[in-house]
């Protein structure tokens, strides 16, 4: 199967995502420049971390108008799996492909550390190989990951089971102590109503090899390999 890794000017985790897909998972992977209008027949699209277009104006605000985003939207509308990691999640929010917005971290600091996430839903292409309630140790690196949405939107997300990952303590409790940035309801990751578009602030692609401190991100990336290989969440061609 083939991963498309979108490259915006200012993306800086594109090579990490490519490395994880190609060299760790042994899958095909291809970079797609933000001005391209085709995803090259990919089975899964990754919007990587970084600072697309310098994060000028707001994180993801300019990237949403990059030409490639029309192809990403078409791919997602057809049911194809799309993963937005960190800045990629912020782009999905600005593009309206996921609800809500990001505020500056409550601490006003750029938080760069390993955190704990609890897998809340296992019926998305990026969590089907996870156990419900599984706690993953994965790094975050962001200044604006403080998730916000209107109360009725958060209520709908919870009711529809669209909160896919929640920040927790090491023992899996979603308390203020386990929340690194002030996100509402400890939200670390979401999916859309179709469940094929997932965004999360932590970096699973940076947690795929023991040499760099954690392999817990593999559960997320191996999920999509399983989902695509088994024919779940394939885009309607």
């Amino acid at each position, binding site marked *: 199967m083939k991963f498309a890794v979108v490259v915006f000017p200012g993306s800086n985790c594109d090579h990490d995502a490519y490395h994880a897909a190609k060299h760790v998972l042994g899958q095909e992977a291809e970079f797609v420049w933000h001005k391209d209008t085709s995803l090259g027949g990919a089975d899964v699209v990754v919007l990587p971390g970084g600072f697309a277009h310098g994060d000028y*104006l*707001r994180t993801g*605000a300019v990237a949403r*108008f990059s030409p490639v985003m029309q192809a990403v939207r078409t791919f997602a509308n057809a049911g194809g799996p799309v993963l937005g990691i960190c800045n990629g999640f912020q782009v999905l*929010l*600005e593009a309206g492909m996921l*609800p*809500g*917005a990001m*505020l*500056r*971290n*409550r*601490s*006003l600091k750029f938080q760069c550390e390993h955190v704990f996430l609890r897998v809340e839903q296992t019926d998305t292409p990026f969590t089907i190989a996870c156990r419900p309630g599984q706690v993953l140790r994965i790094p975050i690196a962001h200044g604006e990951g*403080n998730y*916000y*949405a*209107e109360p009725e939107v958060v209520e709908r997300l919870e009711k529809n089971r669209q909160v896919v990952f929640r920040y927790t303590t090491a023992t899996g409790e979603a308390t203020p102590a386990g929340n690194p940035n*002030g996100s509402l309801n400890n939200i670390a990751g979401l999916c859309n109503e179709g469940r094929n578009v997932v965004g999360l602030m932590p970096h699973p692609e940076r947690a795929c090899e023991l040499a760099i401190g954690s392999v817990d991100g593999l559960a997320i990336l191996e999920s999509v390999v399983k989902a695509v290989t088994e024919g779940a969440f394939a885009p309607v061609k």
Partner: protein
Amino acid sequence: MRARVFVTLKPSVFDPQGTTVAEALHTMGYEAVKDVRQGKYFELEIDVASADEARRIAAAVSDRLLANPVIESYRVEIDEHAIERT
């Protein structure tokens, strides 16, 4: 025609930067400053004949790009005289 656009976080949205600035002011002795909201300010030069048309364009670009309606609100002011000074 010059349009000024002020973008601020909605009152219901916590503004950690504004709060930090307010705390700094209190440390400096400006106890009278009760609240600070930090925002963004844009000046748009718009080549149209009427203030109404400039207002319409400024509002449209604010809706589509300058402000994120999930967390921000904006105010547009049109300076009709700006063109006379050029």
